[in-house]
């Protein structure tokens, strides 16, 4: 029994050591520009992976992810601002600030999840294009509501949010998100989601409550989108409704489609790739004198979609490629 408990502790110890190593060894030597880009990449990973659960694994095409992100972002920011106004020191780097931020993130995530549940309940009875339009409309509703909510700053946006999102916390959220969704799709519930994607009628006849499965995926996806929103707000220190328009939703959809609908590692790769690409194409503008970033970005997207219509990884994961290699050679 003793050794069993010890064994159970090993993953936690490894996790703790990795976190300590990241915090004390990697963060200090990371150039600030790179660290900032990586933070945005991390936030995009959380967004892409959570949307993949809905779009890729459950096969429900949602294009309202920015709306959930906005709910989480505003809720978390509202919470920390309320706490700061109550006199709690939230200056950058204090341990308390990190703990409070985690609380605020969970609060934002839960609220976003609840909204996801409420939106999902009626709309997930729709399919395909109809669902896409409903989710798009929902995203716009959130944005327009935020514009008209004065206590959240309205059009002026919510500013003065403490800048307490740390590199470590972002990647902790990335790990948690990927881990939770990875375990989920390999569980009973996850199989139900895959069944819904493959054939809804067949799934239903096998006893899967399809509506419930879809709503569940939707709510979980919304939860993580909310967390990503919270990280975003506490990094940028300002939230404005304009930042959560449908363009943002499409950016996330592009990451998912590019990485491969139904591939977790694909989403991760695509999120990192697209974030880095947009930033590093800036260097090119120094030689060409014209900003060709968006043109090249679009060309790459078109090219990839022509060459690999299923996305970079399709429905497979990165590790599938490493496993296949030796067998492929011997055959």
């Amino acid at each position, binding site marked *: 029994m003793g050794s069993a408990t010890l064994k159970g502790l090993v993953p936690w110890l490894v996790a703790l050591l990795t976190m300590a190593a990241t915090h004390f060894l990697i963060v200090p030597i990371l150039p600030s520009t790179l660290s900032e880009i990586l933070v945005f990449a991390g936030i995009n990973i959380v967004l892409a992976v959570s949307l993949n659960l809905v779009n890729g694994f459950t096969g429900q095409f949602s294009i309202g992810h920015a709306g959930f992100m906005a709910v989480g972002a505003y809720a978390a920011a509202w919470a920390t601002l309320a706490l700061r106004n109550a006199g709690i020191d939230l200056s950058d780097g204090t341990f308390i600030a990190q703990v409070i931020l985690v609380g605020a993130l969970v609060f934002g995530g839960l609220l976003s999840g609840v909204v996801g549940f409420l939106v999902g309940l009626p709309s997930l009875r729709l399919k395909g294009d109809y669902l896409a339009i409903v989710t798009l409309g929902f995203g716009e509703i959130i944005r327009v509501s935020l514009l008209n909510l004065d206590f959240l700053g309205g059009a002026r946006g919510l*500013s003065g949010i403490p800048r307490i999102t740390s590199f470590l916390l972002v990647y902790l959220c990335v790990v948690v998100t990927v881990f939770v969704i990875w375990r989920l799709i390999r569980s009973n519930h996850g199989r139900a989601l895959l069944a819904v994607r493959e054939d809804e009628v067949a799934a239903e006849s096998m006893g899967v409550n399809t509506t419930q499965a879809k709503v569940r995926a939707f709510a979980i996806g919304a939860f993580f989108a909310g967390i990503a929103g919270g990280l975003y707000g506490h990094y*940028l220190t300002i939230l404005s409704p304009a930042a959560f328009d449908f363009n943002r939703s499409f950016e996330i959809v592009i990451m998912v489609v590019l990485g491969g609908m139904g591939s977790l590692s694909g989403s991760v790769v695509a999120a990192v790739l697209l974030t*880095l690409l947009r*930033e590093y194409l800036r*260097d090119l*503008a120094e030689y060409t004198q014209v900003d060709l970033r968006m043109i090249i970005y679009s060309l790459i997207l078109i090219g990839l979609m022509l060459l690999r219509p299923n996305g970079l990884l399709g429905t497979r994961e990165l590790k599938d490629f490493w496993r296949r290699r030796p067998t492929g050679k011997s055959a």
Partner: protein
Amino acid sequence: MKTSRFLAVLLTIGFVLGCTKKGDQTTEGGKPAGSSIVIGEVGSFTGDTATFGISTHQGIELATNELNKAGGLLGKIVEIVKYDNQGKEEEAATATNRLINQHKVAAILGEVASRRSKAMAPIAQSNKVPMVSPSSTNPEVTAIGDYIFRVCFIDPFQGAVMARFAFENLKAKKVAILRDVGQDYSVGLADAFTETYKKVGGEIVSDQSYTEKDVDFKAQLTAIRGLNPEAIFVPGYYTQVGLIARQARELGIKAPLLGGDGWDSPKLFEIGGKAVEGSYLSNHYSPDDKSELVQNFIKRYKEAYGQIPDGLAAQGYDAAMVLFDAIKRAGSTDAKALRDALAATKEYPGVTGKITIDDKRNASKPAVVLKVENGGFSYVTSISP
């Protein structure tokens, strides 16, 4: 097999991109101390407010070229490194970070829109790099820290100017407001207008709203028409204002429209046509100003870009000139010295008026009121703070 090879190629490209960037960083890091003073600019050269970013940049570029032709600053050439933010906050933030850490800029010029300035300011502040915004009018921008400045007046002032103008000059006792709730700028102006107008004794008979992408304003205008206001305050951007003016005239509303610097674009006449005639707006400067300083600026700008500079170009020009002046007075690009010099700016003769930086790091300077006449703006009066 084929797929994995493709993936490998892609990853390699990613790494190469990553590496070239690191290479750049070291050369960039070694260079700047020598021959030039590097100043960063962040603007929206693409996206919804692209014309604002481009106009501002042309103003900054003109100022820089003139300065360099005249021998530069402190014996060095001034170099502007500009980054586009596509009108997005996070792009503005990453661009600022890049300018500071990679290009080691002495100061940053930007942004036009307040919400993007607010995303940039905390980064400039925490790195202690002075930042001068040409035309972010939201009061909170410079409150972010003591390294953040602006060379324009703030929303409450602009709103108050129009309120006083409506009450005192137009003798209007009843005014209706039609605000764009989707723009922080419009809401700020409308709130300030309301506050001052009520204080001086006027009555706001109606406060209607619309959002950015609306094109039909008949419902709001019909409601306003029934109340017979003597003027209508429409603090929006030129596209909607043009449409609002047209629809108001179609409905038979004769009251003049009042607005702010968001009207300042040649597009206003294209869209509004005759309907905008007889309206008034507040602005940073007037091309009609007969002073030599302004007329000279307009002439040089026209030579360089073939158009009459709008308010944003003038603001961009002044932002750059105030910064250069501060560097000259500071005698170095040391951040602390430069900050103090900027804060000490007094009565700098800019094309948009005499600029004095007050203790909140805002510019205090008069606003001009212009009238729309014969397809152009004509100067009516100046109103001091």
